[in-house]
C-alpha cells in the first residue's frame, strides 16, 4: 500500500515537471497583441501581432534569392488595421482573409510594421484541453483501480476465511 502512494506521488511529480517545462517552452509563443495595441502604444521591440489579412490588400514580389520574398498587406484587428511589410522566405500560409501571427517590429517613423516571420494562430488552448481532459481522468481511473486491488488483496489476506486452490496472496 505504501509503494502505491510512493509510485503515484512520483507520477504526479513527473506530470507537474512536464507541465511546467511545457509552459516554459511555449509561453513566448502564446502571447500575442492586437494591431490596435501597436497603434496605441507605438511599441518598438519585437512583438507578435495577431490579426487577419485584409481582403484585396496583399501584394507580393519574388526576390532574386529564396529569402528575399517581399509582401505588403494590411493586417486588420477588430477596429483598425496595420500596414505590414514582410521580408523573408515565402510563407506557406500567407493569403487573404487568413488569420495569422506576424512577428516583427513596429517602425513609428514610416508607420509600417516590418516583419520577418509569419506563423499560424496560436491555438494551444485546444491542445492543452485535449491532453488534460484525457490524462487527468486516466490517472484518477487507474489510481482508484490500483488502490482498490491493493485494498482487496489486503482484506482477503487478513480475513483468511477463503483460500482459493493453491494461491498465495502475499505479493506486494
Amino acid at each position, binding site marked *: 500500500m505504501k509503494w502505491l502512494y510512493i509510485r503515484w506521488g512520483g*507520477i504526479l511529480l*513527473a506530470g507537474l515537471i*512536464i507541465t511546467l517545462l*511545457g509552459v516554459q*517552452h511555449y509561453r513566448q509563443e502564446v502571447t500575442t497583441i492586437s494591431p490596435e495595441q501597436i497603434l496605441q502604444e507605438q511599441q518598438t521591440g519585437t512583438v507578435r501581432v495577431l490579426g487577419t489579412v485584409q481582403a484585396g490588400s496583399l501584394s507580393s514580389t519574388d526576390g532574386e534569392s529564396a529569402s528575399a520574398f517581399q509582401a505588403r498587406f494590411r493586417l486588420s484587428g477588430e477596429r483598425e488595421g496595420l500596414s505590414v511589410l514582410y521580408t523573408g522566405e515565402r510563407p*506557406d*500560409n500567407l493569403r487573404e482573409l487568413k488569420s495569422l501571427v506576424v512577428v516583427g517590429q513596429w517602425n513609428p517613423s514610416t508607420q509600417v510594421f516590418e516583419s520577418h516571420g509569419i*506563423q*499560424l*494562430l*496560436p*491555438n*494551444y488552448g*485546444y*491542445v492543452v*484541453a*485535449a*491532453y488534460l*481532459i*484525457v490524462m487527468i*481522468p*486516466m490517472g484518477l*481511473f*487507474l489510481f482508484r*483501480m*490500483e488502490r*482498490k*486491488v491493493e485494498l*482487496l*488483496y489486503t*482484506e*482477503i489476506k487478513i*480475513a483468511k*476465511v*477463503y483460500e*482459493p*486452490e*493453491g*494461491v498465495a496472496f502475499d*505479493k*506486494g
Partner: protein
Amino acid sequence: MMINLIKHMRRFEGWFGAAAGVCIIIGLYMGLVASPPDYYQGEVVRIMYVHVPFAKTSLLGYTVLFLGSLWYLWKRDPIIDNMCHAAAGVSVFFTAGALITGSIWAKPTWNTWWTWDARLVSFTILLLILIGYLMLRTFIEDKEKEARFAAIFAIVGFVDLPIVYFSVEWWRTLHQPLSISPRGLSISGAMLIPLILMAVGFSLLFFYMLMVRTQMLYLEELREAKKGRLLSRAYL
C-alpha cells in the same frame, strides 16, 4: 479454474505498466515539443498524438472483448468472464476519450464540435454498444447467465468494428482517410515516430489496465463469495 491467469497478471502487470509509462513519456515529449507543427493546421495537429492512439486502443479493446467472449463461451470459466468485463470497462474509457479529443480537434479544423459523419457515428455506436454491454451485465442476477448473455452481446456487437475501421474508405467522409494504409504512408517521419510511440504506449497501458481491472473484479467476486461463506457459517 484459470487461477493461474490471475497469478500471472499479478506477477507481470508491473512490466506492462512501466513499459507503457516510458513509451508515453517519450512520446509526449516528442509529440508536444520535438515534432514540427503542421503547415496547414498549425499546433492543433498535436492532438493527433493522443486522439489516434486512443481510437486505436479502443478498437484493440473491443477486439480483446470479442476474443475473450468467444473464449468464455468455449471454456465457461468465470475468470475469463471477469477479463471480458474488465476489457469492456477499460474500452469505454478509451472510446469516450477518443470521441472527446476528436471533438476538441474538430472545432478548430472543421469549425464544429460534432458532425454526422460516418466515422463519428459508427464510433459513437461502438461507445453505446460498450455502455449497453455494461448495463446488460447489471440487469441479470444469475452470474452464469449474465456472463453468457454478455458474451453473446459482445460477439454480435463486433459487427461495428469493421464499419468503424473502413467507414472512411467506404463513404465520403469529413474525417480524413487512413494515413497508414496499404497504399503507403501519407505522414512525415517526424510525426510518425511519436505517433507510433504513443500508440504502442497506450496499447501497453490498455493491457496493464486490463490486468488491474480483471484482478479487481475477480477479487470483488471472491470477497462476495467469502462473505457468503461467513454468513453461512454464522447461521449454521
